[in-house]
């Protein structure tokens, strides 16, 4: 079955590019543009994977991730963080909340696609 990926970022151009690339790889994509939408779409659409930005309006990605892990509908959802924040503190905070990958922007697309494939095969 077609795997569904929810991309969360306030940069709409970036989401659009990700979508083109992911759809070429045969994935179905959905989008959310802030932390609140990420939560709601996560519960409503039950994606197989979420690609999550950290610096976003309405609470930021870490807050969204906390809420995702706290909800019984989404607690086990694999999440890959894609962020401009390269500092170790943010990475550790994200890893504590359970992430399957952490990519610093500008993202190496080939590596990201490889990671996505690896996670979705396991699912």
């Amino acid at each position: 079955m077609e795997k569904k990926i929810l991309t969360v970022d306030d940069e709409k151009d970036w989401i659009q590019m990700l979508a083109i690339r992911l759809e070429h790889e045969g994935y179905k994509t959905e989008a959310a543009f802030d932390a609140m939408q990420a939560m709601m779409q996560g519960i409503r659409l039950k994606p197989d994977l979420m690609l999550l930005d950290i610096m976003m309006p309405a609470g930021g990605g870490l807050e969204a991730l906390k809420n995702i892990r706290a909800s019984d509908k989404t607690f086990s959802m694999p999440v890959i963080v894609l962020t401009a924040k390269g500092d170790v503190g943010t990475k550790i905070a994200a890893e504590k909340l359970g992430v399957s990958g952490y990519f610093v922007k500008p993202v190496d697309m080939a590596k990201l696609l490889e990671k996505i494939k690896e996670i979705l095969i396991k699912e």
Partner: protein
Amino acid sequence: MTIDEALKERLKHVESREDRLDKLESEFIALASHEFKNPLTIIKGAVNLVKEGDLGEVNAKQYDMLRQADEQVGVLDGLITKFLDIYRIETGKLYISKKEISLLQIAHEAANEITGKTMEKDVQIEIASLGGPDNVMGDASRIKEVILSLLLNAVDFSRPGGKVRMKITGEGGRVRTEVIDNGEGIEDDLLDRLFQKFATTCTTNIKIGSGLGLSLAVSKGIVEAHGGKIWAESEGPGKGSKFIFILPKASQN
């Protein structure tokens, strides 16, 4: 209010001001990375989409242009990262996550990462461990960054067919790492300035390392954050150069 109380009150005020400054600084780093890196992400994403043919067929010439654009985005990204690192170093906010690591192993990893470059420049890298344990307490990725900077510089300044030697020696309570090239050498008066920001060499008109001479300044910050020391030696132009850093041995920490 007694003098003691007044002093305490004053101290509290100073502390809260420092807290605020600290917060401002971390916010600056976060903002700077966000504001610079997001546009880069979009540029890289767009270039890659076209380059990889996701939006239609691309001929060889177009592909090569897009590959160059993509590479330069990488250069710019590296520069921004270095600027942020300099900022972290200068404000004492460089985060070092220490564990026991082998310098020899990291040296080999670093050398492997730049085989493309060494082949292109026809320069050989030789790594030797000269006895004694080479384990230090360090941040593997940061130490690798230092070794990569030194190796890349040495390769850059070597002549085709040249050799870069790396010697790692455990001696007393520390481990000494030397990167030696037989390249263009460094003038005396430049040796001390090399590790300052934006240092450039007058002899060759080539900037030291990639990125405005920031690499060595970042390397110095990293080594010093580990309680170590880094410096350069050269017998003068044409006589090659030697970059040395020492780090405390693992058992000493």
